[in-house]
């Protein structure tokens, strides 16, 4: 059996140290050495000359060591002294936190020994400040990490509420694997049975028809990259039919994610099912452009016909734009329609132009209504193209020719009977009167709006109204 060698020095194996050298040995072999009396009062302090950070500790002499220890450290020194007094040896190091003048603390690891029978105790300490500083840096880093987790938690809460409150069925799909990363309650309600775990399920797995599953993700991915919608009817496992899918691709944490907004053809509310189907079909197939805006005219939804009239290829390009950008008289047209619809709830007919993306103008008539009385309700615009005089040529060519001939006769009669200046002045007055009448009609006799429409000051309009006795 192996026996551990006795490593303690036997009496006589080291020479007797002269008292004048002992102090130096103690002071250099430790960072701080304390000599305690039998009543645990400090009788002497030796501080290593290399250790400057403690400052002057002479005021400790004559006072109890516990006066300079933190509350948590006091029981440790008391226990160790008790052990020494019962002739036990304290083999372990004591980690004590010294405190001096309130906030100032420093940790020391002491070895504690009795010096003889008279109860004197010596504490030989090693400074732990550098370890303590590292520990504090570690704790700070840990706190910073926890704070970022808390921030993430907060963002996650906002995100979850947003998804829960969104009526659109949304699924976030890994573009490469086709797996649903997460989805919102509306998506789960529409397309999955209650007992299914949506996450980690592949996107195509909810399609009923196996032939439709093949290449489905590729189709979505191509549409996402090409910025267009997948508009086709797809049957799902639980009997729903997808009407169209709007995919958008983005990057997150190195992954490519496709967010898919799915429009179900039917919804579960049986009572409104058919009506909603019909309304949706009307919206999508109407020969008239249908636009829903907020109360400020920001476009929220529009159908394909509006895109045709404005020569725009994708819905994304018009949604969130202001309708005024597409109206002939811009903000004036929009302001008049919105003001009237807010007052009376509906505008039956309003004539203006629609501007296409190529700059061409189309004559239109719009009817406007509010869907809700509250301020957040949407405004619905139904816009239909009306034939311009030029377009009418083919339909009523004979009448046009007749009118043209009559105009030429009138011109010939006028020339010679009045000077050109008189003819122009008189004609200008007639034109002004006609335009003012039109502006007043358009604005429901709102003179301020009519002045804006005509590009006149209100004062000038009043002068002209008076002139024409209107």
């Amino acid at each position, binding site marked *: 059996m192996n026996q551990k060698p006795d490593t303690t020095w036997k009496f006589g194996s080291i020479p007797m140290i002269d008292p004048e050298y002992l102090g130096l040995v103690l002071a250099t072999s430790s960072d701080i050495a304390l000599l305690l009396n039998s009543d645990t009062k400090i009788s002497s302090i030796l501080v290593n000359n290399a250790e400057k950070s403690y400052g002057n500790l002479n005021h400790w002499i004559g006072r109890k060591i516990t006066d300079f220890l933190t509350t948590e450290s006091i029981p*440790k020194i008391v226990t160790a002294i008790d052990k020494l007094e019962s002739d036990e040896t304290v083999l372990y190091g004591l980690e004590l936190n010294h405190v001096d003048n309130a906030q100032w603390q420093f940790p020391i690891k002491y070895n504690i020994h009795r010096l003889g029978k008279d109860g004197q105790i010596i504490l030989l300490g090693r400074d732990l400040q550098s*370890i303590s500083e590292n*520990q504090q840096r570690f704790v700070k880093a840990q706190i910073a990490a926890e704070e970022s987790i808390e921030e993430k938690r907060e963002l996650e809460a906002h995100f979850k509420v947003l998804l829960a409150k969104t009526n659109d069925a949304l699924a976030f799909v890994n573009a490469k694997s086709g797996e649903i990363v997460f989805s919102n309650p509306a998506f789960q309600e529409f397309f999955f049975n209650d007992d299914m775990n949506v996450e980690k399920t592949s996107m195509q797995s909810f399609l009923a028809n196996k032939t439709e599953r093949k290449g489905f993700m590729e189709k979505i991915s191509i549409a996402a990259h090409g910025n267009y919608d997948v508009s086709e009817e797809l049957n799902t496992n639980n009997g729903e039919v997808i009407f169209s899918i709007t995919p958008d691709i983005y990057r997150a944490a190195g992954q490519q994610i496709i967010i898919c907004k799915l429009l179900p053809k039917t919804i579960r509310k049986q009572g409104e099912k058919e009506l909603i189907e019909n309304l949706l079909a009307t919206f999508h197939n109407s020969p008239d452009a249908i636009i829903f805006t907020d109360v400020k005219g920001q476009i929220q939804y529009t159908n394909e016909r509006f895109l045709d009239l404005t020569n725009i290829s994708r819905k994304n390009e018009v949604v969130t734009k202001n309708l005024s950008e597409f109206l002939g008289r811009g903000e004036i047209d929009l302001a008049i329609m919105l003001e009237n619809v807010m007052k009376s709830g509906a505008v039956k007919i309003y004539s203006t132009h629609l501007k296409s993306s190529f700059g061409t103008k189309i004559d239109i008539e719009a009817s406007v209504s509010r869907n809700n009385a509250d301020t957040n309700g949407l405004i619905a615009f139904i816009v239909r193209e009306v034939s311009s005089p030029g377009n009418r040529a083919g339909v009523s060519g004979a009448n046009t020719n007749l009118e043209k001939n009559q105009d030429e006769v009138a011109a010939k009669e006028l020339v010679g009977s009045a000077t050109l200046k008189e003819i122009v002045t008189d004609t200008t007055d007639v034109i002004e009167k006609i335009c003012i009448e039109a502006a007043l009609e358009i604005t429901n006799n709102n003179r301020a709006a009519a002045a804006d429409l005509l590009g006149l000051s209100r004062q000038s309009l009043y002068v002209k109204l008076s002139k024409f006795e209107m």
Partner: protein
Amino acid sequence: MSDKNIRIPPSSDDGLISSLVYSALNTSKEHLLRPANPEWIDEAGILLVRECLSSSFNQKIVLQQLMEQGFKHDTIVDYCIPLAATKLGESWVNDTLSFSEATVGSANLQILLKLIAENREIGFESSNGKRFLICVHESEQHTLGALVMGDMLRRQGHSLKIKLDAKFSEICNLQDSNDYDAIFFSCGSYLSVRETASCVNKIRKTFRYDLPIFLGGSNIEKISEGIDLKDFDLVTSSIEAVVEYVEKQRGKEPLGLLGAY
């Protein structure tokens, strides 16, 4: 034929009966394996201390070990982790662990707690949860207690802001902007109790209204001896006591408030 003689025909519903039996056994297993016995918790605490001090600590393996012993996530958070933290602290007091070892052990417990919290699906819709501000004052370095309490409160459907390394001005700004139902301070040392008490005294002077403020910590009675705690409404580590106090003080919020975080 009397009721006593009714027998289920052997051929008809064997599958259903087996399914019922297994279901019942599984339910019983959950009940029976619940570590209600304090000795079980103590053993788990010892295991956690050993693993958290190991150089090959792996939170997933430790969690797996505890679950195989029949511990549920909530039991680990509510009982095993706090007990292990207490044991680490005691080991430092007994000088069987250095403070750097105790710090590493405590940090590993925190990692285990984070793993459990991340894996848990917290019921998101909370009908009448309160809103708490949990603070660890800047004078305190122990954050585990606050995080454990945070997890307990979140499980009950309360919404929290946990502010670590909190300064007086930050606490006032947060309270001013959010009007929390109560503020809870977590302390682990005598010094931090003293500093926290002084901070709360200033908070009381800043907010004149009746704002519930609590003080807690696993060893709070001992480490707060001799410190004036009159500015705290309660000095306790009981979540139930805190919630009950706030319920009485502030009443219930409207139903259907989203966001249990």
